[in-house]
């Protein structure tokens, strides 16, 4: 069976997936945190190889996605939408749309049952409503990133935050802190604001009702809850490995391409 690797180089983390046939063998991610990116990629790749207990020579195809052009040992590169759609179908087969929320961008993707991308919408270059923005807010509030979601769930009087501009939103947050608003209510307000933007993206991209959330913010339970509250007619699905959807999708597409290229060679 084909063994393949997928490497998703994001703006804040590198995610690696190892697959064999239809199964995921290993998943590993490394935060970048001002480290030399090539070293982070190589470290994450080596650790994932070890976790999967495979040698580099066992790999039929190393596929990249995201900013993966920096991976010199790649065989092929796939665009982020393609890989997130494929990863979402693997993790959550009932879904027909993807909401990929990363550190810098969010994308709404409509797809068919084979993960073929039918339509998509992306946020602009503005950082508002991105993972990076949420990280900044966590820093202002002096809380760990992992606490953001659970704390937001405790909010019972969410404060309205600008949904247009990260700079204005950050100013809002500073004002709220000085007004003594509870961090839980601040975070809940931010999540509601972000969820509103994502739902608009989804509606503009198409009308699928089962939506897989992928990307780094898929693990933010507060955001997922805000999405569900914000939009009752859409069903939002998450998976424990949703943050690896890009890497998993890249690995599966790499394995597919390997089979295509081998059959071409044989014929």
């Amino acid at each position, binding site marked *: 069976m084909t063994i393949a690797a997928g490497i998703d180089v994001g703006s804040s983390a590198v995610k690696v997936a190892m697959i064999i046939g239809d199964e995921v063998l290993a998943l590993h991610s490394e935060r970048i945190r001002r480290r030399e990116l090539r070293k982070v990629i190589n470290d994450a790749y080596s650790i994932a190889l070890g976790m999967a207990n495979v040698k580099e020579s066992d790999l039929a195809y190393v596929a990249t996605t995201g900013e993966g052009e920096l991976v010199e040992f790649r065989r*092929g590169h*796939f665009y982020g939408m*393609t890989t997130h759609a494929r990863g979402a179908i693997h993790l959550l087969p009932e879904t027909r749309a993807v909401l990929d929320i990363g550190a810098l961008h969010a994308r709404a993707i409509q797809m068919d049952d084979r993960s073929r991308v039918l339509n998509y919408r992306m946020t602009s270059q503005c950082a508002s409503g991105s993972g990076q923005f949420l990280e900044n807010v966590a820093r202002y509030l002096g809380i760990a990133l992992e606490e953001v979601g659970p704390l937001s769930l405790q909010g019972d009087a969410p404060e309205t935050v600008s949904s247009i501009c990260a700079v204005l939103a950050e100013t809002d947050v500073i004002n709220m802190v000085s007004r003594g608003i509870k961090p839980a209510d601040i975070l809940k307000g931010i999540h509601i604001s972000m969820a509103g933007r994502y739902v608009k993206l989804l509606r503009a991209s198409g009308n699928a009702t089962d939506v897989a959330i992928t990307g780094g913010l898929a693990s933010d339970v507060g955001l997922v809850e805000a999405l569900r509250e914000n939009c009752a007619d859409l069903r939002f699905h998450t998976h424990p490995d949703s943050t690896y959807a890009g890497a998993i999708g890249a690995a599966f597409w790499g394995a597919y391409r390997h089979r295509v*290229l081998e059959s071409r060679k044989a014929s």
Partner: protein
Amino acid sequence: MACTESECVADCVRRAETLAFADPPPHSIGYMPIYVPRELIHAAGLLPAGLYGGGDRLEIIRGDAYFQSYICRIPRSTIELALSGHLDRLDGMLFPSICDVIRNLSGMWQMLFPDRYVRYIDVPQNFDPAVGGRFWRHELETLRRDMERIAGRPIDDEALRNSIAVYNENRAAIRELYAQRSRAPWRFPLSEAYLVLRAGNSVPPEEHTALIRDYIRGAENDLSRREMDQSRVVLAGMFCEQPPHGLLVTLERAGCAVVDDDLFLGMRWIQGDIPLDGDPLQNLVDAYLTASATTASRYSPEGHRAKWLLESYRRNEAEGVIFCAPSFCDPALLEQPMLVAALDRAGIPHTEFKYSEDTGQFAVIREQAGTFSDSIRLWSAS
């Protein structure tokens, strides 16, 4: 001494960045894209210097005053280069017939630089030897006399034959580079090959031929270059104003292996070798009539317009075509619908976008090229 491919490329970048016109022969003649008979300039002992705009590092201050906003960028950056003194070393300028804008530029040049040699090269659009051939011979005879006057020496037939042989060698080296790229695009990426070709605009052809051969040898011997799984695409529409280098890098990073293109088409305008025996001037005339490349600036009968593109697609075993034309380029953009229709009839995947030589943001192009490449590799058989 032969250099490695990375040294060759670094040398090309240095030349491009400094706009250095070589260790100059005493005189040089500038020319705009696409085709001029460089053999005649070379035979006079002059350096033919190709001007393909100011690229993405030239700030246009005065050039914009000469053209409306709906005109492409290459004429305004060329004017800017001239007005800022970058072209002072040229003894003259040739403006071949590409489009109305370049025709007008030749007139503006005559008014701006009345003491310099300027000539509009009106290439024939009739390929009957008795009509277009006679006209073109007359043009070349005039150009020959002009070059003789500037160089201060006659161009005898032997010198012209020698120059034809030099350019035959140069074209052969370029053909080899394209053939190698088509065979193994990961070994000869367009982002490097483009720089190697571009250097040919500012160095003598003999030196350029050696540079191309050094690059090919170096890249062939570089075992660190790994085979990549990319979509094989043909680029079309870039025969005049050149794209910024970053755009070519972006296309390759997005998963496209460019196996053929129409960049610097003038360098490959004559398809094959020009004979060396007989009357060399007539050989130049005949080569233009019978062995010219096909492009939007050259007349082709109805139905023949897309022939070159379909042939290139098949010969290079391409999987798709990217129309990548400069904004406001009349020839490229007016031809595009006919080419698109022909590709649609043949069931060939294609995508389109525009650029200007100073385009600096590639995110949208990267997205478009990336999804195009993925769709070819993952869905073309379904």
